[in-house]
Structures are given as C-alpha cells and as structure tokens.
C-alpha cells in the first residue's frame, strides 16, 4: 500500500510539472490549470486513507474543508476582474499562514528538544510562512486601497528592519539550540509577522504584483520546508517547484518593468524627498482641455489612432465603450490599434483580459515593442486611464522612481488625448510632464462616461 501512495504522489508531482509547462503558453494555459488541479486531487486522495483520525480531528477536518472551500469558491467567483491581483495575494497569504501553523504543530509534537533535522525546517517554515502571510495582507490592503498605495517610509527604517531580522535570527538559534518551548516559537512567529508588514510597507502600490509573486515563491519554500518536517514527498516537490518557478517569475516581472528586483523591493528608501520636491515644482502649470465635439471631429478625421488603455479603463469598466468607439472610427476609415504596455493595469495581461472580454479583435492588440515605432505616424493617441506607462520621465529624468522603465512613445504622436479622472499622479505617485505638453488635450471624468459621450459625438460628426 505504501508503494501505491508513493506512486500517487509521484503522479501528482508529474501533473504539477506538466501543468506549469502548459500554463506558460497561451494556447494550453487553461488546460494547465486543470492538469495541476488533477494533481492536487490525486495528492489529497492519496493522503486521506493514510491518516488515523481522532474524533476531534475528523470533525475539524470536515468543518475546516467546508469553510475553506466555501470561502475560496465564493471569494474567487465574486471578485471583480479589477480586484483579482489582491485576491491572489489573499489566497497566497492563506497558504503561507497554513504552512506556519503546520510547522508550529509539528514542533509542539516533538516537545522541547526536537532533533535538529526536524526543527530546522520547522523554524524556516514558521518564519517564511509568517512573513508571506503578513506581507500578503499588506499587499492586499494596498491594492484594495484600504491604505495608501504610496511607499511608507520613515527615518531609520532600514535599521528597524535590520533589528527585527536580527531578533528573528536570535530566536531561531534559541529554538534550535536551547529549547523549542511555546514562548520561543510564538515570539518567532510574531516577529516574522512584523517583518512581513515592515517588508511590504515601503513598496509602492504599482509594484505590488512583483511583491505578491515574490511572497508566492516564499510560500512555496515554506511548504517545501514543512514537507521536510513531515517527511512528505509531495509537499517537498510541489513547494519547491513553486519556490523556484515563482522566483524566476518574480525576476521576469521586474524585468518587464525595466527594473531590478532590488530596485523594486528597496528602491523607496531615500526617494521620498526627490519625488515630493519634483511634484511641488509643477504646481501652477496649465493644461489644455477641449469640448467633446472638437475631440470627436479630431478623431473622426484622423487616419491613424492608437488607444493606450490603463487601470482607469478597468476601474470604469469602459472596455465595451472603448470598443464601440474603435468600431465607429474604423467604419469611418480610421485605422485603430491598441498599445498594450507589459505592466498596464495592475497586473501583466490585465488589459488583454479586459479587452478580450469586450471582444476586441486580437490583431488590434499590439505589444509595446511591436507598436512603439508607429506612434510618430499616429494622428491621435487616446490614453484611457493610463499614466505611468506613457510618462516620459522614465526616459528623461534620472532619479525618478520609474526612470529606466520602458514606456510607450505616446509623446511622439501628433495629438495626445488623456482621459483621466483628475490631475492626480498615477499609481507610482509621480507627476507626468506629458499632461502639460502643448500637444496634449485633457478630458476629465470617468472613462466610460467620456467614451460614451465621445461615441455619440463621433456619430454626429
């Protein structure tokens, strides 16, 4: 029987690997998710018969699975498309928390002097799992705008974080060398939770997807460590797969933003002053606005129009309205394309998903490298709720938090129309010079509202 269970775990591991492989190609991605889910079901099915339930154990497992399953299903089904990144953060935090609790329970079982090869992975799992749990909750709060999305920094922050980390190392040694009494590993857990919060606070909201990806990799490693404690093959392999692929994915995501991971995680330190100073200098500058009718005429008599969608489009749920406008312009003989920045919105692929929902033809969606040379031939660039991804500061202003990020060359077009709710800076919290450019026309208001008015005006034009 033991052999059968071991083979089932092996099969689960193979399915996880195949699932990941399929998930990295658009054609097979959805099946990849099913493949991985099948692996999960097999691993769970092979686990349950091996357990010897106490009566209390049977009850808590039953209730726990029902509660967790209900929360997970409802959360995942009800969440709006715009809120998916923070939902992923919550689910990741749940996994990290579970890994830490499993490790605590194992340490309790071993008593005050656990063997080192059991205690070491346990404390690792407690620390990393707790950091992931608390960090994910902060990431959630930032994206859900329960707290400010701008980096939170204070003098001596690095010293404080260093002290927390040092205290954690101290308690780890205490648990391993002296005794794993509840006092020592509960303190460890609390300190790790504080470190998780302190780690994410100084990172801006726009960088949260990268942080969530990193915490996701952390949780994977915590799960793998729990696997060492429990001597469970499936936990080790699946956790490590996630830890490794998650680390690489984190690097790929920061690469897509043109930044190093170190810059994303620790870039906020010392930058607060420069950003604030730059914003102060821009007070009192004028922007140009225009009537809907004038804009409609401009659009209707253009030859080439490029639409740059951003997070504002998602918030306003304006994907259908933007498609209606594009269709109308195409009927009038205007060539319309969409320029998709790799990190437009709050997660990579966010815009593709939204515009696909509105059935925008795939061939109109152009990736940045594909379309960046076409901006200079465009008559109008219509920026719908985007900001940082067209901010020339990324090219021209060394010291700006987004300096070095590849951007869309919207500034090279003959006319630029910004649909924005206000003059507020984008998610990175920096002012955009392009808003004050003489070629730029501002159209304030909700994107869906403005687009609908524009559609009616173009019909009349």
């Amino acid at each position, binding site marked *: 029987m033991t052999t059968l269970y071991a083979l089932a775990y092996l099969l689960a591991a193979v399915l996880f690997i195949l699932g990941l492989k399929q998930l990295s190609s658009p054609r097979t991605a959805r099946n990849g998710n099913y493949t*991985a889910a099948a692996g999960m079901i097999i*691993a769970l099915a092979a686990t349950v018969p091996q357990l010897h339930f106490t009566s209390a154990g049977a009850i808590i497992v039953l209730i726990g699975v029902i509660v967790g399953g209900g929360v997970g299903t409802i959360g995942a089904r009800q969440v709006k498309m715009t809120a998916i990144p923070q939902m992923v953060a919550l689910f990741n935090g749940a996994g990290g928390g579970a890994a830490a609790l499993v490790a605590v*329970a194992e340490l309790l079982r071993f008593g005050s002097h656990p063997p080192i090869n059991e205690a070491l992975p346990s404390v690792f799992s407690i620390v990393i799992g707790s950091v992931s749990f608390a960090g994910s909750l902060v990431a959630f709060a930032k994206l859900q705008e329960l707290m400010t999305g701008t980096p939170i920094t204070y003098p001596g922050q690095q010293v404080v974080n260093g002290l927390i980390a040092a205290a954690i190392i101290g308690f780890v040694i205490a648990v391993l060398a002296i005794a794993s009494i509840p006092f020592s590993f509960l303190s460890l857990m609390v300190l790790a939770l504080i470190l998780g919060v302190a780690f994410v606070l100084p990172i801006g909201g726009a960088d949260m997807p990268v942080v969530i990806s990193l915490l996701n990799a952390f949780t994977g490693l915590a799960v793998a460590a729990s696997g060492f404690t429990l001597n469970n093959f499936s936990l080790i392999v*699946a956790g490590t797969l996630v830890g490794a692929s998650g680390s690489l994915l984190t690097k790929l995501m920061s690469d897509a933003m043109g930044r190093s991971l170190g810059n994303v995680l620790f870039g906020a330190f010392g930058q607060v002053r420069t950003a604030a100073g730059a914003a102060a200098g821009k007070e009192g500058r004028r922007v140009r606005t225009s009537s809907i009718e004038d804009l409609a005429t401009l659009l209707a008599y253009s030859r080439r129009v490029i639409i740059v969608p951003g997070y504002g489009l998602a918030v306003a749920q304006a994907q259908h309205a933007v498609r209606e406008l594009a269709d109308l312009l195409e009927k009038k003989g205007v060539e319309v394309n969409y320029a998709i920045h790799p990190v437009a919105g709050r997660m990579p692929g966010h815009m593709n*998903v939204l515009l696909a929902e509105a059935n925008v033809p795939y061939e109109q969606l152009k990736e940045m490298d594909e379309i960046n040379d076409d901006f200079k031939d465009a008559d109008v660039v219509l920026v719908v709720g985007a900001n940082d991804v067209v901010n020339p500061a990324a090219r021209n202003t060394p010291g700006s938090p987004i300096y070095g990020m590849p951007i869309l060359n919207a500034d090279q077009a003959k006319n630029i129309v910004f649909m924005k709710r206000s003059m507020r800076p984008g998610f990175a919290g920096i002012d955009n010079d392009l808003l004050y450019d003489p070629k730029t026309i501002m159209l304030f208001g909700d994107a869906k509202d403005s687009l609908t008015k524009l559609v009616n005006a173009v019909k009349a034009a």
Partner: protein
Amino acid sequence: MTSELLNEFTFFVLAVFVGIEVISKVPTMLHTPLMSGTNAIHGIILVGALVIAANANSPVTVILGFLAVVLATTNVVGGFVVTDRMLEMFKGRQAATKTPEAAKTK
C-alpha cells in the same frame, strides 16, 4: 545525514531545476495567471494541514489544525478557481480572433 533526509534533499535540488526550467519562456500576458496557478499549487500544504489536524488531541492542536485546514483549503480552492476565471478571458480572446473575418464577409 540519514538516507531519508538525503533522498528528500535530492528531490528538493532536482525540483529547483525543474521549476526554473519549466517556465523559462513565458509571455508577459501570462505572468499573472502563472503566478496565480503556482499559488494554487502551493495549496498542497493542505496535505500537511490534514496530517496535523487528523492527529489533533488537545485544545491547542485542535485550534492549530482547524485554522491550518481552513487556510490551506482556501488557498487550494480559491487559487484554482480564480486562475480559471483569468484564463477563461484568454479563451474568449481566441474566439474573438475569428470574428473580424466573419464581420467583413457580411
């Protein structure tokens, strides 16, 4: 090092390489679904949560086990469902590639 620990360590090292190799070429638009998919996979911690919950025999272990099972199940179920919702949208886009030709023939 016991042979069991050595075996486990071998699996660990090999899994690191497989994990990196298997996703090395992923397009930007799949970054988030992939993150969400791997997020669901580390919900395998539910296996560990079941092990400690099944053995629960004191108030402390009952509480720990219950919380671990709830959190881990949320991770697994929510992770897979939300990933599927994201990827559902991509399927919609592939269907959409056919519509422009259909529209032109009208």
